[in-house]
């Protein structure tokens, strides 16, 4: 399996990357997930949908998902919607791309790609 290779190192530390509005990022950084490596690449990316260009969000997403040290990528749902094509095109199990609610946008299960699949499989009208 593709994942087999990634999990090879037992003691390896994996990072959690965040793409989100400043509040989301600030909050998660408080819990200590933030990391800036020696080449000054941060594992978080602040998006202001009024100013940040879609392509730079996509770039950040690609950078995080290609990084072998990242195991989880958190992304605000409303931002994920902006780069939906990119997210749907990403099929690998690791890193896990998690869509999280943002401050102004409460969690909408119907927009979550993974959850939609889950629901389709459970075969329930929930």
């Amino acid at each position, binding site marked *: 399996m593709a994942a087999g290779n990634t999990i090879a190192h037992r003691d390896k530390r994996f990072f959690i990357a965040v793409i989100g509005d*400043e509040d989301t990022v600030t909050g998660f950084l408080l819990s200590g997930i933030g990391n*800036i490596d020696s080449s*000054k690449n941060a594992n978080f990316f602040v998006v202001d949908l*009024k100013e940040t260009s879609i392509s730079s969000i996509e770039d950040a997403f690609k950078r995080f998902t290609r990084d072998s040290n990242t195991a989880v990528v958190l992304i605000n749902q409303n931002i994920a919607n902006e780069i939906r094509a990119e997210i749907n095109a990403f099929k690998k199990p690791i890193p896990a791309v998690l869509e999280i609610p943002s*401050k*102004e946008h*409460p969690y909408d299960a119907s927009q979550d790609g993974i959850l939609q699949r889950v629901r389709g499989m459970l075969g329930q009208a929930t």
Partner: protein
Amino acid sequence: MAPGGMLLFNTDDGYLEAIIRGYRAGILSSADYANLCQCETLEDFRMQLTATDYGNFLQNEPSPLATTTIQEHARKKLVDEFRAISTQATEPLATFLDYLTYPYMIDNLILLITGTFKEKDISELIDKCHPLGLFDSMASLCIATTPEELYREIVVDTPLAPYFAECVSLDDLTALNIEIIRNTLYKAYLEDFYQYCQKLGGATAELMGLLLQFEADRRAINITMHSFGTSLRKNERESLYCNFGELHPEGIMRLARADDRSSVASIIEPYGTYRRLWSAAMDNPDKNLEDAFFEYEVYLAKQAFDQQFHYAIFYAYLRLKEQEIRNIGWIAECISQKNKSKLNKYIVVF
């Protein structure tokens, strides 16, 4: 000149005091807050604010509004007001007003120092600085690329230089936790400001004494409470306490040895004010000690308006306005998150 002198106060500072009292009338009332709390969206919120002294300060902002935008604009309004006053101030009020901007300066400088450590672009950082804490040589900070340069070339030019020279050496700058540096500077600033106010004498000394003593005590208690479970050592902690305040010297000494919350509680037990605040915070699960402190600060600041011919009113106005901005931010936050369960946390000023 003692600015407390009733006879001569109005010659230099009467006009500005009048202006401040005029501004004070613009502080949101409890009715305004009640209206703001009724809002369902931030657009409503913006509409409600136009009915207050804030006017159409948000009119050029595109929708959707962010809570931070609202807060930033409210802060900008405060900064404008403050600048209008400080440009007209004569000595010694001018110096007094300068003192008021130092805390912001400390925060800004700390931000810049952390940024330089990371070799960030300084001009980018300056945008993040608090406008009240900007200083002249800030533009030249772009030259500094290393902490050493920053220390030698820039810091000496700022009004904060004496505090730096007193407490922070170049080695500390790289070795110490940035928060410790921040609080060391703050302590030095508070002590200096306190002495300056005492020198001014009169009602200023009296009222500012109260306010600053409270500030010093609050910091001491906060630092103690917050240091539990962190890497902050007791001797480091002790060095961050101010050398004045109601708790000084006895309470401070005991605070330095405190190990947990309950020991803090027993230390502040003899001090009526803090005992009251503590129990107020403990009785109400929605409120923590810091909220109680904020309330008390508002109470003290309001008292400053009861007297005339003194400078404390400027300090008090700044504090009240900051509380107001906090309130606005809080209510806006609750509205935007559609979570009104804790809406009533704000503190009505007047």
